[in-house]
């Protein structure tokens, strides 16, 4: 029944048909799927580490503030310490000069580049997209992202890969300007989890999924209550209706 309903819904959202992409994105199992799914905090915390040590060199996350990390279970002191590792531009001060200062929890994540042009210039003209909403900004969001991170394979012999481009079997057109960001053990996890490619891809995707939709858990929790409430109300309203209409006809 639920499957049927989802099918009807996706038929309704016809614009997904327009995507026209012929690449099959694998389906992964995510902790936040389903009616009661929540973000796996440990995984998201590890994902933050992957983001900070691997992605943040090129990709900004300008909608996320350090204070938001409290959602992932970081303590206030820990958040302050993380923020203090970054310098962000501020000013002008009383002398009219711009200056840099250590970030505080209310600041947004420090941007690796001062502006889009600088980001392009540093990356052969390709702009590394902001990752705040990336999971919601791509069809098949999380699945696509993880697949992409793991999708760097040897190009087929007949495919020409130009200088500054890389072959990825899940990228539209198979050519991507980002070299494979992950490699075995590139991150040293604090909790001793082994940093395999798959583990890191899962973790960073979990982190980015949270970043894109931090209200997901509230939403599902409230939704359940609302739907149950409406069902009870419907039952009562239905009995009322039967009683009111009993004498008619």
């Amino acid at each position: 029944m639920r499957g049927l309903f989802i099918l009807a819904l996706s038929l309704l959202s016809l614009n997904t048909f327009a995507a026209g992409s012929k690449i099959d994105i694998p389906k992964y199992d995510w902790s936040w799927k389903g009616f009661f799914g929540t973000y796996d905090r440990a995984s998201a915390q590890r994902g933050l580490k992957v983001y900070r040590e691997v992605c943040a060199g090129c990709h900004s996350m300008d909608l996320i503030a350090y204070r938001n990390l409290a959602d992932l279970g970081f303590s206030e002191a820990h958040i302050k310490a993380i923020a203090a590792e970054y310098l962000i531009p501020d000013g002008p001060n009383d002398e009219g000069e711009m200056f840099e200062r250590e970030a505080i929890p209310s600041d947004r994540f420090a941007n690796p580049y001062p502006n889009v042009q600088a980001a392009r210039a540093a990356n052969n003209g390709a702009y590394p997209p902001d990752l705040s909403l990336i999971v919601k900004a791509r069809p098949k969001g999380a699945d696509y992202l993880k697949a992409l991170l793991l999708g760097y394979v040897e190009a087929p012999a007949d495919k020409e890969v130009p200088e500054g481009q890389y072959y990825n079997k899940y990228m539209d057109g198979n050519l991507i300007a980002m070299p494979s960001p992950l490699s075995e053990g590139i991150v040293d996890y604090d909790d001793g989890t082994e940093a395999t490619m798959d583990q890191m891809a899962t973790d960073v995707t979990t982190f980015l999924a949270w970043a894109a939709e931090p209200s997901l858990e509230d939403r599902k929790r409230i939704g359940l209550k609302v739907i149950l409430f409406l069902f009870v109300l419907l039952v009562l309203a239905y009995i009322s209706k039967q009683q009111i209409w009993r004498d008619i006809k």
Partner: protein
Amino acid sequence: MSSNDPQGYKKTLNSPYTGFKGWIDSRLPLVRMMEAEYLKFPVPKSLNYFWSFGGIAMFCLIGLILTGIFLGFHYKPSADEAFDSVERIMRDVNFGWLIRYLHANLVSFFFIATFIHIFRALYFGSYKAPRELVYLFGLTMFVLMMGTAFLGYTLPWGQMSYWGATVITNLFSAIPFVGDAILKLLLGDFNVGDSTINRFYVLHWLLAFAIVGLVVFHVITLHMTGSNNPTGSEPQSWDETVSFHPYVTIKDLNATIFFFIILAFVLFYYPNILGHSDNYIRANPMVTPAHIVPEWYFLPFYAILRAIPDKLGGVLAMFGSIAALGLLPWLDTSKVRSCLFRPVWRICVLLFAINFLVLMYMGGKPAEGIYVLISRIGTAYWFLFIFVLAPLVGFLETPRQPLSITNYLQSKKA
């Protein structure tokens, strides 16, 4: 009333109520109006659940206005700030995500309710005399709804907002001679920009309230003629009617709760399924998305637009498709209203509904090959239905004798 006693005339207007109710009512006849139109108002007792969708649509409209007001407290209509202010609503405003997702999904459900409402009008002949004006006010609201939805969709200032606005406003450049001047006037700029989003925001509000105003006219005209019903026969006695309250109110309440359960399911578990992922990317005037697709409720009309190979022709066909529907009360020559008693017309109407869904599907496909061909056939049927089938079938078909409301209810029981 006596002609030489003006006070005597006034007395006939005196309120039948006493106390505070009477005090209000003899100054502002709201109480007796509410009682006449919403409590005692006689409604055919044969109405089925198709008749609940007008009320459902009204609840959607109320919900949209309410959520719109609270979003408006936080939203900033400027090219630089719009996207971020929406994300601030989603992240930092208390329950902002709920209010925004409600607003975005209510639109879709408003359209679902309206489509069903219009289908009901076609199937049971509610557009026919004496309800032409009810129908025309309704169609006008539908046009305004599409305008409001389009304007609203530009406001989050994502990629699809920006490029959707660009493509649709460019339709106006198809107007001969003055097209470009009108486009500039509309945008307040040479392309969709800061001035555009600012005025679109104002117009989004204005049109929304214009719809509310038209609801009043829709209801006044409806209450002059009374509701149609599945038989299309007018009630012949009080026995064939029930009072609006509590009979219709409780029925509509049931339908509304059921409808809102489906809405809640989408809202809380798949809030983005009816939207497009590209709209979570900031508008970028330098990069066009691979496929520009309007929201799902525009797709049938988008298919008609693209079915015509000529730019101006496409625009005319698209707007004409709705305008032509407005002629239906006069083009349909049949004396019988309801499709229950019109075997041939019934097939035509059902085909029209299926055709609508097919066009919707085609509108989401790229404009190439077989999709264009099917869109053209669909567009042709749309106009054929109104201009040829409606007069012809009404003339040639032999309808069955419509049942009275009492007989209809008895035959349903049997």
